[in-house]
């Protein structure tokens, strides 16, 4: 593992370079005002990817169904806003988080007893069940037409969501900062180290008496909570929920973003969505038929040649530079 992977033995202080994403995010706010809605989307997906990195990169749980929690958060926030008339964004977000946590805890407690293909299959099946429910419960979710009419009151009663996406961007940035802090704290704690232990050798973790199953359930539920929050944010900033938030494609897309950035190193989850979503914004509309092809080729290439993603490539380049000098 690289030095960036964290762990209990690593120095938990924030290194100067770790402030870079936040400086860039703020710079983006002032320098690129016309791209703020895309920016907010990127921030949301970073949070979402971060939640996946926690279970996939650190705990080693392979899932194809993380969109279940993201989608649930999105729908809970949306239904509260559009059907129940609860427009306060904080309340919506807390509800989305709670829903993600509950579903994560319930499903995690069930599926984490299994391993490998069975686990993969169960994550897929759970997401399919959620998608099927959202598709059929049309009076709540709007079904295939999507849920519109989402009303979101000003944040803290002061900051109204404007059409330029300024509020949305800063709001997402603050939530992401909180999520990042939480994930980072967790990874540098003994709990995080025990997760890495489970990923590397679960038999030995059993042997030294670690409660492997409960650690996994806990981190799974935490990850689902964060994914739920990300889903809630997406609803609030786009004021719409579509069935696609729950789809397998959405979970696959998320995996692509995380892999592209680099798995198991926190900042891979920052780099991946930036690259992916900007590329999507540039190419997907003009060349939709090549977009999927490009994604597929990129996945194959990353697996074959660049297993660490963008940050992994950077590591290699930096190491070479250092050797030369």
């Amino acid at each position, binding site marked *: 593992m690289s030095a960036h992977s964290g762990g209990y033995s690593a120095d938990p202080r924030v290194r100067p370079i770790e402030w870079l994403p936040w400086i860039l995010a703020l710079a983006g706010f002032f320098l690129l005002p016309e791209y703020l809605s895309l920016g907010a989307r990127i921030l949301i997906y970073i949070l979402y990817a971060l939640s996946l990195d926690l279970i996939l990169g650190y705990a080693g749980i*392979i899932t194809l169904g993380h969109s279940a929690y993201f989608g649930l958060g999105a729908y809970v926030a949306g239904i509260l806003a559009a059907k129940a008339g609860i427009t306060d964004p904080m309340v919506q977000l807390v509800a989305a988080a709670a829903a993600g946590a509950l579903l994560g805890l319930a499903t995690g407690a*069930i599926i984490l007893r299994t391993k490998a293909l069975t686990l993969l299959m169960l994550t897929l*099946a759970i997401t*399919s*069940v959620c998608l099927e429910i959202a598709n*059929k419960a049309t009076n709540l979710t709007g079904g295939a037409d999507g849920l519109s009419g989402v009303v979101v009151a000003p944040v803290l009663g002061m900051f109204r969501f404007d059409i330029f996406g300024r509020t949305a961007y800063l709001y997402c940035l603050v939530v992401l900062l909180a999520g990042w802090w939480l994930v980072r704290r967790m990874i540098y704690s003994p709990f995080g180290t025990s997760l890495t232990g489970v990923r590397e050798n679960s038999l030995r973790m059993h042997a030294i008496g670690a409660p492997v199953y409960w650690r996994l359930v806990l981190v799974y539920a935490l990850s689902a909570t964060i994914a739920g929050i990300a889903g809630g944010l997406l609803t609030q900033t786009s004021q719409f929920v579509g069935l696609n938030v729950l789809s397998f494609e959405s979970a696959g897309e998320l995996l692509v973003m995380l892999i592209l950035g680099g798995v198991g190193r926190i900042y891979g989850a920052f780099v991946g969505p930036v690259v992916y979503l900007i590329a999507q914004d540039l190419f997907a509309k003009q060349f939709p038929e090549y977009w*999927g092809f490009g994604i597929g080729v990129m996945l*194959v290439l990353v*697996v074959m040649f660049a297993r660490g993603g963008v940050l992994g490539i950077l590591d290699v380049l930096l190491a070479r530079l250092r050797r030369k000098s």
Partner: protein
Amino acid sequence: MEAFLASLVSVAFHGTALGMILYVISVGLSVTMGLMGFANLAHGVFAMAGGYILTTAISRFGMPFPLALALAFVLVAAGSVILERLLYSRLYAASDLEQVLFTIGLIFIAVAVARFIYGTLQQPVFLPDYLKGQFPLLGRDFPTYRVFIIVFSAATVGLLWFGVERTRWGAMVRAAVDNRAMAQSVGINTKRLFTLTFALGSGLAGLGGGLGAEIIAIQPTYPLENLVYFLVVVSVGGLGSLRGPFVAALLIGIADTACKYWLPQYGAFPIYVATIGVLLWRPAGLFGRHA
């Protein structure tokens, strides 16, 4: 009562046809996963390729149906050998995650290529006259093509089982599934065995995709939309087994048809719930050995 009985027979019949197709497509996946430990999510790509080959051979080149079906098997098997040697074989030792990502990548590529060549519309299947119409059986009429699907698949499955249970090649495959290292040490060329078995499994998927083109519509998102079904068959049936997925495929085919017939408002919901239940009860599948 009579009407209920008629619908019961109809559901069992159409369900069996769907189950047979699911089995012919998925059996290769069970073997690849059991034999090579490779999580090949892109298995549906081979089935889709078979479907496109069959429909194109018939509609564009006017090929007779049996020849088109054989072509679907041969071309897909040959194509899969190239893929296996070029790409898959490099990832046998890789982690589950890498295999999953790699095969998802293949799915994306296949979907894009299919859309590029054929567009998003579903491919029509032109059946020869002798497979159209109704087939009288025990005082009822059944669609001839579905009867053909059941009979032909049953024959294929019988042949496959005979091959695995009774031939030397089958004994080698079983040995390699049970204990790869030991099989290798007694002189079985597992590398070649993998390639051949992979080609056979993919070829069968191509055959199933072509045969079932009328039941499971051939369109670009085929490998994504049906992925869950193929995986359900394999995981419920049990990895590396031949009989398990057969039972699972029939159960799922019949259950799916029954749900669509009697409970259309629930969609595929009951199937997924049942799958979750079975996997929790027996994580290694109905007939799988406990890992």
